[in-house]
């Protein structure tokens, strides 16, 4: 056997607490290129967990990381750990179709999502990481008069609160996307609701940016650390069991998305949530084809194009409870049939890859950000397919709720007990059937 030159020293994980991080910009990039990019600092440390934190956040997804970031940034709370059972961003933040929008219509929802949009609009400068926030426009197509009326209601609900919305007619849609099916469609396109400020964001970069931002403020992000139990004494949370040992904490926030039922069960709570698998897909890379985000109104299909050129698309959940991050063929067909119905020329484009994520489907399709009946235990769940766009506001509001021990006005409607009292936030009007939301 012959010897090959090794890399030299093995690159160790970075434990040190002091912040050596250099700012990201074109100058630091050029500077580093002269040294073969050997001098970049890690974007985050890989610390061992301390035995105790003021606040432990379970779940290193978008919401958990954003929560930690805003706890540190907005509330000065930095003795915080984020515990993530997989790798950083391995959950839904790392597998969603990246759409952001604030086209909600219920009073409990709209201001929250609009706040999220505002945070997106300033995010990169805030955390010095290019997450490619790209306001390419989100267009929802309608195919019946009833759908148009519903869009009018929604669009007005947006406009009434100062959120941008435009109602397009058929010709205006055709102008934007002339190669959609306007000739032979089973359900003709009649128009659409456009939010120009909607768009896409590079999903992984959101996790990375928040992680880097939180870490640099002293938050410990601990990967491969699974929470297996929650310790409660006298109705009060005192700490969590993990595969890395017991970690004591004064407050505990659960932001575990599709796994919420499991983590809440560790505290003896049964949630109004089901876990469902949602598939997503990407096509082979193409030259610019679809400029914005478009959703089909006569079937389950939505699509946008990534900066790499892949058409990123998806549709409905598979429809059965699942913790497997993969779906089955019927939904693939269902989604693609709708895709070709909307864009006949797409038939010869090829689907490269499919994957799935586990959605925390709530009973009314709206999230929960709240305190729980257990003292110092806070809950963030119920995002269905829509939690990516919520990431900044969710983190912001959850941080507020934890830090102040009371919900912010923006998340006041996202109460855990709203089903008991009958104050549902049901944008779709489907009722307590999570797989219809």
């Amino acid at each position, binding site marked *: 056997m012959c010897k090959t030159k090794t890399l030299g020293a093995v690159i160790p994980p970075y434990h040190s607490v002091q912040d050596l991080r250099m700012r990201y910009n074109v100058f630091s990039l050029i500077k580093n290129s002269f040294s073969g990019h050997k001098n970049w600092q890690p974007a985050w440390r890989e610390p061992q967990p301390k035995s105790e934190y003021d606040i432990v956040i379970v779940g290193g997804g978008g919401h958990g990381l954003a929560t930690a970031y805003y706890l540190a940034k907005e509330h000065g709370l930095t003795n915080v750990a984020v515990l993530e059972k997989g790798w950083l961003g391995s959950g839904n933040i790392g597998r969603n179709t990246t759409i952001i929008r604030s086209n909600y219509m219920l009073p409990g929802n709209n201001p929250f999502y609009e706040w999220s949009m505002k945070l997106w609009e300033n995010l990169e400068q805030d955390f010095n990481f290019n997450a490619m926030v790209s306001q390419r426009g989100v267009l929802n197509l309608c195919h019946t008069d009833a759908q148009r009326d519903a869009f009018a209601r929604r669009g007005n609900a947006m406009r009434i609160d100062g959120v941008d919305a435009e109602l397009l007619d058929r010709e205006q849609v055709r102008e934007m996307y002339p190669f959609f099916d306007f000739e032979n469609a089973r359900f003709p396109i009649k128009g659409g609701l456009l939010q120009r400020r909607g768009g896409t964001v590079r999903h992984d970069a959101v996790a990375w940016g928040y992680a880097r931002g939180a870490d640099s403020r002293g938050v410990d992000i601990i990967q491969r650390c699974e929470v297996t139990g929650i310790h409660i004494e006298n109705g009060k949370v005192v700490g969590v069991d993990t595969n890395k040992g017991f970690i004591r904490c004064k407050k505990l926030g659960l932001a575990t998305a599709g796994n919420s039922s499991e983590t809440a069960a560790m505290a003896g709570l049964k949630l109004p949530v089901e876990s469902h698998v949602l598939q997503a897909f990407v096509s082979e890379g193409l030259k610019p084809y679809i400029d914005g985000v478009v959703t089909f109104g006569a079937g389950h299909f939505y699509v946008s194009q990534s900066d790499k050129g892949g058409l990123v698309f998806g549709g409905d959940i598979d429809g059965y409870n699942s913790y497997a991050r993969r779906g089955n063929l019927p939904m693939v*067909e269902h989604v693609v049939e709708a895709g*070709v119905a909307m864009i006949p020329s797409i*038939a010869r484009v090829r689907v490269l890859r499919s994957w799935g994520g586990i959605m925390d489907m709530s009973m009314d399709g709206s999230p929960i950000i709240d305190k729980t009946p257990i003292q110092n235990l806070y809950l963030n769940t119920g995002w269905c397919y829509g939690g990516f766009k919520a990431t900044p506001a969710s983190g912001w509001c959850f941080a507020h709720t934890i830090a102040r021990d009371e919900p912010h006005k923006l998340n006041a409607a996202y109460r855990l007990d709203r089903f008991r009292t009958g104050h549902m936030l049901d944008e779709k009007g489907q009722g307590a059937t999570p797989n219809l939301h």
Partner: protein
Amino acid sequence: MSSYRLDKGGLIDRTTELSFSFDGKPFTGHAGDTLASALMANGMTLMGRSFKYHRPRGVITAGAAEPNALVELREGGRKEANTRATMIELYDGLTARSQNRWPSLNFDVGAVTSLASSIFVAGFYYKTFMWPKSFWEKIYEPLIRRAAGLGTASRLPDPDKYEKAYAHCDLLVIGSGPAGLMAALAAARSGQRVVLADEGARLGGSLLHEREEIDGKSGLDWAAGVLAELASLPTVTLMPRTTVMGWFDGNIFGAVERVNDHVAVPDPYEPRQRYWRIIAKRAVLAAGAEERPVAFGGNDVPGVMLASAMRSYANRYGVAAGRSVAVFANNDSAYRTARDLKAQGVHVEVIVDSRMDASADSAGVPVIRGQQVTDVSGRKGVTGIELSNGTHIDCEALAMSGGWSPIVNLACHRGQKPHWDKSLLAFLPPDNGPGFTVAGSAAGKMLLSECLADGAAKGAAGGKPVAVPNCRDEGFAIAPLWWVKESHGKAFIDYQNDATAKDLPLAAREGYRDVELAKRYTTTGMATDQGKLGNINAIAILAEATGRSMDEVGTTTFRPFYTPVSFGAFAGPFTGHHFQPVRKTPLHEWAEEQGAVFVETGLWMRSSWFPQDGEDWLASASREVLATRNGVGICDVSTLGKIDVQGKDAGAFLDKLYCNTFSTLAVGKARYGLMLREDGIVYDDGTTSRLADDHYVMTTTTANAAKVMAQMEFAHQALFPELDVTYVSVTEQWAQMAVAGPKSRATLQKIVDGLELNDQTAPYMAALEITVMGGVPARLFRLSFSGEHAYELAVPADYGNMVARAVCQAGEEFGIVPYGVEALSIMRIEKGHVAGGELNGTTTAGDLGLGKMVSAKKDFIGRMMAQREGLMDPNRQCVVGIRPVDPTDRIRSGAHLLKRDDTPSMANDQGYVTSVAWSPMLDMWIGLALLANGRARHGEVVQVWDGLRGARVMGEICDPMHFDKENKRLHA
């Protein structure tokens, strides 16, 4: 241009010449060629450009894993971007174009990016393009987008057809090499239903391009014999050109058969591709192994290719990759390339073997041991190689082999992880139990004899064994070599995405140490080939960089699809107008005769209005309303859901389903019913009639018919199984027409048999079984949605058109008109009846003004949850009528309501308009709305705010019943 076509050999038909063009230039090839082999035969090594740096690229493989030689195939609506030249079977008239280059493949301006490649390292874009903020969307991103992407997709509809099909088998064999053939044979001989699928144009797997002997015959002849036997068995289905692209739950495999991708234009009766769902009791994966490259400088120069691919081009296609070639390997198998090429008369310069102790038979080709290729000279084609000791060797092509990776993809599609084998230097497939086993090289068997025996054993799976044929094995030995770090030039790991070996340690340094993070940060393995070639090298480099073992690093997640699948295949025939089935009512023909304009309502086509003399919808609908209210109109209401409910407990069952009571309904009568969901929200409404003691027929809204049926099935089977009741949809059995207006009775009287219609025989809410037109069985309901004296007449569907015509004839003297759903909707809004806009899944019975219907005496679905405080809140939005203060103003659906002087804001939002209509009776726009505490606000003037359409008018809140409040007409 010199020819690289060898004088003899190969499985091509040299007597058939096919012409084709590449980038507009004409070429010829032979039947049996791929586009790649034909281009190579014509001396074309440059076939594409890479993603990021636009590096010149040629073929690397002879198969499905090809990352470089991607072309735009065909033209117009048939244009396909990113098609692998190595998989395109040549046909006469083929046209292809290179992609991701401008202005030409040979001279590509985009290649300037490689000048700045020291900046464009992995993840550079996360660190820059943030300033100034507005530049991202306007400047940076468009540039990135234009530079990225590969081929251009067509914007014309695809003219070809696609199909779907199911198959069932006892055993599915994936791959038709020696292992697959033996597996299929073993199962087939014991009478099992076998499907043998291979993505190749021809069955035989590696036997088509290796020179091996089995049972004293050439491997090719042996395979032909086995295939002939399989083909002769009725229980065997052979599926060439069929890629099994995914393994799914229930041992269901997805597969795509390329029925007509090898011809210019498919036969008009045949699909281009057929998508299969293969439901297999058992499956054997015999997909073989993928040879992998080595990372060294210039390992992407056109002319550097995998050793097995070079062998394949020589043996199968009779094409030499160059006039003089060199071989670089860390294992024995590449020696075959030297031997086979030499036997074909190609000059083989040297074998460079990274091992000191290599001992394979080089057939006289000189071997340099213990050396590595550090760099390749040449830009658009290899001119020579540089060794670690500084030696330069001239050659036109370089065959490389970094070892073999079993093709385990499918075995990992359901979440299982492969494990590392230290001696084979390969990830071996996980154990998935007896339902899905792996055989041959896919299971890490490197010797032919092992592949044959393994295939036979996995195929028989404990059943009757088959004799394993004899063969001579080639030895196999390997020593690790992933990355030649002395290289000066770029050493590529992921060719298409331009990820280099150095990107991985960089990712690790920056904290992206997990293999999944490194993948996402560097984009390694994310291109169209999904890392089939390079992922193992990436893992090894990352393992070394982070001091972990291969197993600790592990593979990234294997996902469907094994190779990319066209949208068309998944969609099948369900596109365009056939996206969903069309549902037509029994009166469709009649409505067409009447000039109906149809509208999609769910799957149904409903007549929407019946224009005369160029009327628009509003004029037509208004005329229809007036004619109906002043005389008589007829409307097709067949789409309403109709459910036949029978049994001793039919009444008790309906009492559970509806919030009001039906067990007390008299035979011969109908009653309006309101159905809630268990959460207390209104689900559906409709009338239900009692035809006999144990027989009801209920109607549902068109939209909810299927949902209500499922709800009934659930309620009965899961909640109240003790009830003796049956229910069956009779929606399609009956053609149903509403006949409405003051002259409706007189009209119907003319066709009703032997019954004088009056308020005694047919009072309001009567439900009668009668006959019409001299014996046609019919059901007559005296119901009204329009507020007029009206009936609904149902007749068996096959008679529908005739009966409707007869009604029209009968009403002629009264000026009968057909009216559509637009007119229907106007009349119901005039009467304040709630429909879809108000039954929106969030309203309660109280919100709809129907609170009185809710029984307090019995248990029914939704009873308890409807009593929650949030649903009883008097400030909830409830249904009101609304009309413009200035009758010339228009109100639109979806406008929001604000107090008279409030400024628009969410906090001030009071509700919204749910339905509007132009009322020809009142000569103004009227509407229904949901308004906070609305019932207490009749008479209040509010703003009707429609910022979306730039309108704001004042509206007056009123009773929802806009017209004929006393219901005089109903009882007239």
